[in-house]
């Protein structure tokens, strides 16, 4: 009589054994070390934020205190507004520039590479000392408004936005796609909007994500220019009440992670550049 094998549902230990047999033990070890490196500080933050509570008080007392403070919302929305403005200005400036350099001036790419790393090598304090007088001369009206931070953050975000767009454009056959669109009658602006941008979606989302992270977390310039952004507010709270400050830090972590996850999910939808041909 023929033997029949019936598939049996895998138990947890079975599954673990299978994973162990597929992944070398050293990989798991380093993965664990990496996870601890990131998760331990977060755990410490959460733990500290639940301490210093008087008997009978809500365990989430410091979190509730943060949410009750009207300056929390004001500073958070100010940072969100600045972050979105920074993303918008960065995209408007960088997308057509990088597109044009890749398409028509590829010889300028090394120059662009060099320019894009300047914010890495010039400290923010030096940048602001140089930029502030210029911006003040350029527009006193703008200088006293928080929007001025967006212009400065565009410079800080330049390396990230440029690298993301550069990588995105390298991943597609820009020249052929542009020429194909032109041969079908499309102008260059139309080609950029209808053909190139949808295929740069992942790169744009990636660059925007990093720009948001920079704009939301920047402290030095905002503090020096006297704007109470979210990071400045967090610092101020931390200097007066340690527990509340740490609770606020955890909230800000969650908010930024949430924003990034949102952007990531938005970018996952499609528009991937790589078109892999199926074999005939």
């Amino acid at each position, binding site marked *: 009589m023929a033997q029949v094998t019936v598939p049996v549902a895998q138990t947890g230990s079975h599954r673990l054994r299978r994973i162990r047999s597929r992944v070398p033990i050293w990989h798991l070890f380093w993965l664990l070390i990496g996870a601890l490196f990131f998760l331990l500080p977060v755990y410490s933050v959460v733990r500290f934020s639940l301490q210093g509570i008087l008997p009978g008080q809500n365990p989430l007392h410091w979190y509730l205190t943060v949410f009750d403070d009207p300056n929390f919302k004001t500073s958070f929305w100010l940072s969100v507004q600045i972050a979105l403005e920074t993303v918008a200005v960065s995209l408007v400036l960088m997308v057509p520039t990088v597109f044009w350099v890749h398409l028509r001036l590829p010889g300028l790419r090394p120059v662009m590479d060099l320019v894009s790393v300047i914010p890495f090598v010039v400290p923010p304090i030096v940048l602001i000392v140089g930029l502030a007088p210029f911006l003040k001369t350029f527009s006193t009206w703008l200088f006293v408004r928080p929007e001025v931070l967006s212009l400065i953050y565009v410079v800080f975000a330049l390396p990230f936005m440029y690298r993301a767009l550069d990588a995105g454009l390298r991943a597609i056959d820009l020249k052929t796609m542009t020429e*194909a669109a*032109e*041969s*079908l009658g*499309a102008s260059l602006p*139309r080609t950029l909007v209808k053909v190139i941008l949808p295929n740069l979606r992942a790169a744009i989302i990636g660059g925007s994500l990093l720009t948001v992270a920079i704009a939301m977390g920047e402290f030095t310039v905002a503090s020096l220019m006297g704007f109470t952004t979210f990071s400045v507010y967090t610092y101020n709270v931390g200097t007066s009440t340690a527990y509340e400050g740490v609770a606020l830090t955890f909230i800000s972590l969650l908010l930024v992670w949430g924003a990034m996850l949102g952007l990531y999910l938005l970018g996952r939808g499609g*528009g991937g550049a790589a078109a892999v041909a199926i074999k*005939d």
Partner: protein
Amino acid sequence: MTTVELRGLSRRFGNVVALDHLDLEVHDAEFVSLLGPSGCGKTTALRIIAGFEWPDSGEVLVDGHDVLGRPANKRNMGMVFQAYSLFPNMTAQQNVEFGLRVRKQSRDERAKRARELLELVGLGTAMSRYPRQLSGGQQQRVALARSLAIAPSVLLLDEPLSALDAKVRVQLREEVRRIQLELGITTLYVTHDQEEALSISDRVAVMSDGRVEQFGTPAQIYSGPRTAFVANFVGTMNRLEGTVVSSADRIVRCGPVMLNVPDPSFNHLAGETVELFLRPEDISLELLSNGDKPPEGLLEGRVTSLTFLGPVTRVGLATDLGPLLADVSSGVALTLAADTVVAIRLDSTALRSIAR
């Protein structure tokens, strides 16, 4: 009706001459192939016609009007590229509709035209697929449909099949020709594949170093090469070097052998050094018994190699004229082996003479 004429087209890239006073005339509804090795300027010529490159001098006339002043998006020329050029964010249908959308055609008109053209290229059932869901051959079919959707005055194809498998390439090139004949569209096709060019073109322009070496029908190019380059580039040729003994009688001495060359284009003076070309299929072999001499008018030769090519076998021969190649039917080749002595008959009517 659309004609294309290139007049004195020149283009240099630094020190490299891509096009050297290129002249070419393509008739209405004609299928012309630009054939040549890499770097001969064929793609540069096509890109200048399309508007993606500009010549240093010369004219590109479409229906008698110079189009060099017009940008690529105003020339109304369909182009299929060597690289897969479909827009990855669009389905096959949306790709085909793109040019019509630019021309502000209604949604219904666009959908109808896209369906017609995708059916024409045999992809009526793949309209909603994205490029990543199509094979290379299917992508190039969609690219062809997309370029035809705008009803172009001229169709330009830049080695569209070179990235495909040999079998798909043969199938698709026949489809390209069928569609071109069906639509009667003036077509310029760039390729380095001589078989491709000869099999689907009305006329072929063989190019070398930015110039047209010879422009003619596939039969003229194959049977009557006018330059040594064309003779060597198109197909396989036996090349013999000789000296004209008699101009009137068209007698050429090649080593110890005198050859009569009835080539109607023979126009050389006595004493002139010429090259004679003969295709392997124009040489036939007869087996010789041991010690026998070949009949009068035939050469003696010894088999040096046998290469099986399917229906024919290419036989390498050592002769008084130097090494020769002959194509014999593979059945006959079974009687041959290395060092077999054979009598060689040259079809002198197929001999072509070119001055050195």
